[in-house]
């Protein structure tokens, strides 16, 4: 696919090819967020917290047991982050907290107050995809796409951590992200591509 591919272009294309079937955007910018679910009935355990998600203030009323993953999906309407296993084994729920990748299913939302949370919805600059998102499309680094937001969040962190030195190193440091479709080879291709582009520029 052409470099500089945009989300809008991609959606337009998939709508056309799918013959009018509802297209699922790969990334949903925060401003186009799916309307949040109505706030649940307030129980005595509930507390008011404020999160910073993708650079925006996100006030929430939650029970302390709510995971960051559920807060993002169920309350903030940010459904790009996926729930696979819900217990730390698959990486589908990977987000960044203060710049470090974590499994949002094993993170209580209440512990994230005052910390910067970045989700897949926060990677693109307007209509311009993040280089890792664009590389995943170029290299066909997914089949069903369910693991993809987590893979991309892990991959962007891996590049920042400087662990893209070799294919073996990429595989080792992507080990927390399982792909049930087995798109691993293309995922490694996409990450290597972004790493070498960055190295070429630098």
């Amino acid at each position, binding site marked *: 696919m052409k470099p500089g591919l945009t989300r809008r272009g991609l959606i337009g294309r998939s709508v056309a090819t799918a013959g009018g079937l509802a297209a699922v955007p790969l990334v949903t910018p925060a401003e186009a967020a799916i309307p949040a679910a109505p706030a649940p009935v307030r129980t005595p355990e509930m507390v008011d917290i404020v999160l910073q998600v993708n650079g925006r203030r996100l006030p929430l009323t939650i*029970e302390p*047991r709510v995971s960051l993953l559920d807060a993002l999906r169920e309350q903030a309407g940010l459904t790009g982050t996926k729930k696979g296993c819900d217990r730390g084994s698959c990486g589908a729920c990977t987000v960044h907290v203060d710049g470090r*990748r974590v499994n949002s*299913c094993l*993170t*209580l939302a209440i*512990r994230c107050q005052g910390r910067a949370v970045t989700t897949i919805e926060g990677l693109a600059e307007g209509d311009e995809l993040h280089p890792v998102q664009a590389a995943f499309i170029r290299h066909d680094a997914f089949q069903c796409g369910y693991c993809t937001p987590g893979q991309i969040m892990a991959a962007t962190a891996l590049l920042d951590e400087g662990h893209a030195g070799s294919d073996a190193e990429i595989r080792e440091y992507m080990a927390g992200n399982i792909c049930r479709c087995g798109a691993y080879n293309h995922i490694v291709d996409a990450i290597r591509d972004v790493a070498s582009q960055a190295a070429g520029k630098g």
Partner: protein
Amino acid sequence: MYDFTYQKPSSIADAVKLLAEPEAKALAGGQTFIPVLKQRLNKPSTLVDLAGLGLAGIKAEGDKITIGAMTTHGAIAASPEIKKAIPGLSMMAGWIGDTQVRHCGTMGGSLANNDPSACYPAAVLALNATIVTDKRRIGADEYFQGMFTTALATDELITSIEFALPVEKSAYEKFRNPASRYAMVGVFVAKSAAGVRVAVTGASQNGVFRHTEMEQALSGNWSPDAIAHIKTPPGGLNSDIHGSAEYRAHLITVMAKRAVAAAS
């Protein structure tokens, strides 16, 4: 997950007071405890978040390295002081789970939990480290008391772990479960003022243990050949879908030889 109330105390004294309630539980990295709560295997009234106690950090002095209980696996793996003084510990921390887990999971949490497949128990036992709590100091040999069982009282908090220096040799080798990356068998070998110590995790139904036959063999001759002939009886070893007791017995010698070679 059952409901609980959440508290984030800012002093150890307050944390211990909160933990004195019968159903209160401490929360460190949550990488073990949150899954436990999700499976409703535990029903705490209050979760006491240890993140506000200032227990994260690594302090290297001349004759010891002190690691705060809330220090993450990632921070331990990244520490240049630990890499220099105890390379085996650095290696071990960098191999736990995956990067996401290492960013949250803590050394104190792992030791308090004492999972029979966890890595730190092997390092702490082989290096004869001291577990420092809000109440006392506990030597490694007394601390581990069988799987998921330790010398800690229910309202006792690990505050730090001390490793005496110098450590002449240290290395850890594990055969990872390919999915979870926990140790099917992990062996930590060390040579320090405490002598030669070999600790095995992942293998036994009773959790981490010292392999005294290997310790004796290595005391005379630090080389993989010195232990190549040593066989561990499979009785009492774990047997599950990942491997039989006999297979784990075999892995102990293989991992121990590799660890000795890595620390030569």
